[in-house]
């Protein structure tokens, strides 16, 4: 998997998250807003339609009242054809400009009275007209017709709404059944409806409830030839309320209100795109807002992310130069607190590394120094000179046996001490070295001392630093045995103490004062006659190799003797192979 940078992760995740939240909020808000807008539109449209239908209802009622008044007046009159009657009716009709005509027919369809006095069509047969028949059949019922072109009068085709009702009148002294007809100009309704505006395109139409015929429609001419369609089914289904009609190409809102007294329905049609302009505007604004916010969030988050990731990257660069070996650098901890902490820790770490490295350097230097010293000591000319002197003297005394012993010992001594240039040898070899040294010294000092070895067999296979016992024996001879008048004894012992090797070199010589001990350990008392490898050298080497916990331990008592104990970990040759850096 490809690893992403912090900056990338932060930028992308914050941006995505924010966009998600913004989207969520927008959707919820938009939903609420558009629902409210829709409600408002519904209410507005419904109010307009309600108002319109109220006006119409009122108009129809007033007209019906007038008709009833006329009906009443005629019914009460003694003679309908009298001039008084005519005058009374004329004045009643004149109160309203929209009453077109009034006509009274008897039950055979003969005209008894008409106002104004207009000639009826010759071809007309009133008794066969539908309205006339139904008025006679349902006595006392006022029927209001659909708007239609009045076909009664000569030279006149007027759009009217006809009100008709059966009536009983006094005509020529007889009681006659008949029908009263009043035509009201449709113009008023037409104008009333046309004035109502529902947006730029919206309109109102009137529907006849019983047959589903359109009473009024501003585009009636387009509906009959099917150039336009009006979804009257939906309007017929409801008596009141606002609905959304999505049957057509453009969604429309339809508000319905029923006019009770004529059985008409006023239907308001508004176009959704007009009604919901605020909503679509809101939509556009929201989209813009969303994009703007997304951009801002993106910019901000990338800014924040770079604020966080830049110090980290700087830190990384600093670490890179440390990687290349530049330990003197201090990393600056600019940036957030965490980065500062990180930088501080890093600086401390670098300090520690620096310290450790310095120590390694000094340790290596000392090791080399001491090893060189030990190496030099292997061929100490004084020792060689004394030994050879002894040999010469022996030869002079003809002590051949002893000469051979001495030379053999010397040769063994050198073989071991030169070795193969290794600084570590087995304890067995080191013991052999010490023994040869003691043999040579015994020859020199003519049995001034004797020696003993006490070796634990298991310890012999472990390794030891080379040339650590010989200097101690030399020290014992020089400070313990040589000055003493009695015959001395040197005991060397090796044994295991747990995981440690313990080597002891003890003598029964003069012993040492504390002062002398200090001198020896500080390395100031180096015998020029000796091997030249001082006790201090031994001590330092053991500590360098095995640690400060190990090394030499002196026990000395005046006139009793000195015991030096060496302690170091028991290691088999393999274990130290890698650690042998010399």
């Amino acid at each position, binding site marked *: 998997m490809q690893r992403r940078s912090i900056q990338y992760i932060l930028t992308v995740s914050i941006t995505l998250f924010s966009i998600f939240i913004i989207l969520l909020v927008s959707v919820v808000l938009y939903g609420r807003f558009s629902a409210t807008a829709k409600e408002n539109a519904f209410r507005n449209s419904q109010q307009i339609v309600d108002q319109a239908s109220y006006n119409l209802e009122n108009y129809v009622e007033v007209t019906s009242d007038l008709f009833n008044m006329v009906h009443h007046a005629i019914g009460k009159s003694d003679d309908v054809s009298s001039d008084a009657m005519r005058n009374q009716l004329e004045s009643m009709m004149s109160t309203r400009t929209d009453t077109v005509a009034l006509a009274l027919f008897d039950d055979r369809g003969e005209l008894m009275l008409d106002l104004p006095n207009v000639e009826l*069509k*010759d*071809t007309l047969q009133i008794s066969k007209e539908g309205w006339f028949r139904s008025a006679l059949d349902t006595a006392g019922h006022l029927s209001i017709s*659909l708007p*239609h*072109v009045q*076909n009664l009068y*000569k*030279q006149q*085709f*007027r*759009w009217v709404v006809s009100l008709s009702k059966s009536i009983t009148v006094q005509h020529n002294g007889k009681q006659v059944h008949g029908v009263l007809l009043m035509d009201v100009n*449709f*113009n008023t309704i*037409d104008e009333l409806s046309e004035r109502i505006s529902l947006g*730029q*395109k919206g309109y109102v139409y009137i529907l006849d409830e019983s047959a589903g*015929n359109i009473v009024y429609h*501003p*585009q*009636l*001419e*387009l509906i*009959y*030839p099917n*150039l336009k369609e009006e979804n009257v089914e939906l309007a017929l289904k409801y008596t009141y309320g606002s609905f959304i009609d999505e049957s057509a190409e453009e969604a429309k809102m339809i508000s319905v209100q029923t006019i009770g007294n004529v059985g008409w329905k006023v239907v308001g049609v508004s176009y959704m*795109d*007009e009604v919901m*302009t605020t909503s679509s*505007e809101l939509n*556009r*604004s*929201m989209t*813009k*807002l969303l*994009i*703007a*916010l997304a*951009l*801002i969030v*993106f*910019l901000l988050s*990338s800014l924040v992310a770079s604020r966080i990731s830049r110090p980290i990257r700087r830190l990384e660069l600093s670490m890179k130069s440390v990687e290349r070996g530049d330990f003197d650098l201090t990393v600056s901890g600019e940036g957030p607190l965490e980065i500062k902490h990180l930088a501080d820790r890093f600086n401390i770490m670098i300090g520690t590394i620096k310290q450790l490295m310095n120590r390694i350097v000094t340790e290596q230097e000392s090791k080399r120094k001491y090893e060189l010293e030990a190496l030099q000591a292997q061929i100490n000319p004084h020792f060689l000179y004394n030994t050879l002197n002894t040999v010469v003297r022996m030869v002079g005394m003809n002590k051949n046996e002893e000469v051979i012993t001495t030379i053999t010992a010397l040769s063994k001594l050198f073989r071991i001490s030169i070795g193969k240039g290794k600084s570590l040898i087995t304890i067995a070899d080191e013991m052999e070295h010490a023994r040869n040294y003691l043999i040579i010294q015994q020859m020199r000092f003519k049995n001034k001392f004797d020696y003993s070895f006490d070796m634990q067999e298991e310890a012999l296979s472990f390794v030891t630093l080379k040339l650590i016992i010989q200097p101690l024996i030399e020290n014992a001879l020089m400070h313990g045995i040589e000055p003493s008048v009695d015959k001395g004894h040197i005991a060397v012992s090796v044994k295991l103490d747990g995981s440690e090797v313990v080597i002891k070199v003890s003598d029964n010589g003069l012993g040492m004062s504390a002062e002398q001990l200090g001198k020896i350990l500080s390395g100031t008392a180096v015998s020029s006659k000796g091997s030249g490898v001082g006790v201090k050298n031994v001590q330092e080497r053991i500590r360098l190799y095995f640690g400060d916990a190990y090394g030499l331990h002196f026990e000395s008592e005046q006139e009793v003797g000195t015991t030096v104990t060496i302690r170091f970990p028991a290691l088999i040759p393999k274990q130290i192979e890698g650690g042998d850096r010399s």
Partner: protein
Amino acid sequence: MFKNKGSIVSWLLLIIAAFLLYSALYPGNKEPKQEQTDETIQLILRTSKGDYWQNVTMGAQTAVKEFGINLHISAGADEGDVQGQLQTAMQSLEAQPGAIVLGANADAAFEPFLKEAAKRHIPVIAIDSILTSGKTASYVGMDNYLAGKEALREMAGHLGGEGDIAIVAFNKGGINGALRERGIRDAAAEYKGVHLVDRQTCSEEYGACQQTVSGILDKQKVDGILSLNTETSIGVALELKRRQAGDKIKLVGFDSSPELLELLQENQLQTLIVQNPFSMGYLSVKHAIEAAQGRTIPSRVEMSVELITKENMFWLKNQKLLFPVVQ
């Protein structure tokens, strides 16, 4: 270098964001209402007189209300005024309307106008009568040739497929008149028993027309008369009424007027072939808007015709067609 580029991009994004924010918070009024087009449509009528052309105008006004455009209306003095109408048409080009709806009085005379309109890339939509002298975007109107055929078939129906027929044409009938007449003649050939025995022209003078018709009737036995427009139909019907020959001599006419309808009721004539001028006005303006906006429109929009008889004239759907104006 990269850093520079990055910050430039950041600033750019910030500016865009600020702009979007501004326009989101202040939705300016520069955004035009989508439905409202500022198209101007020129409507040139044959004449401003008569119910027919008034209905065309009403239809056009309905379209104006629906689509929210500007409509300029001009008309010739009368149906024969070719030069006057041509002049009006040429003038209207100067105003650079989006489209022109033209009910032309003549065909050939409008050739220069159509050429000029094509040069200015103003689509012309012919209504009522087709224009063949130049390029028009569309024709909205009835198929007069088919209507003529229809008239003769109707007449043949009234006559029971047998009889002598005379044609009374309008002297300013123009293209439509010619097409109707050709349709009648072609249809007459299909009926063995139907013979075209006479053809005369009339003007809008009813009196003169009555005399012409009287001449026809005196000259020969005539069973049916086909009159090609409103005026001639009235003239013929009045003459038939005068002679009380309405029952014997059948009359089929074109177009309608209240007078004609009354005569129809009196059985002086039998059938009227009626168009829907309101639809014509509406549709022509609707298509003119589409043409002005560069959309493709049908090259021919055929208006249906209604055959009006005494029986169906007061049907609900015919009332509005025959009596469009509420008064």
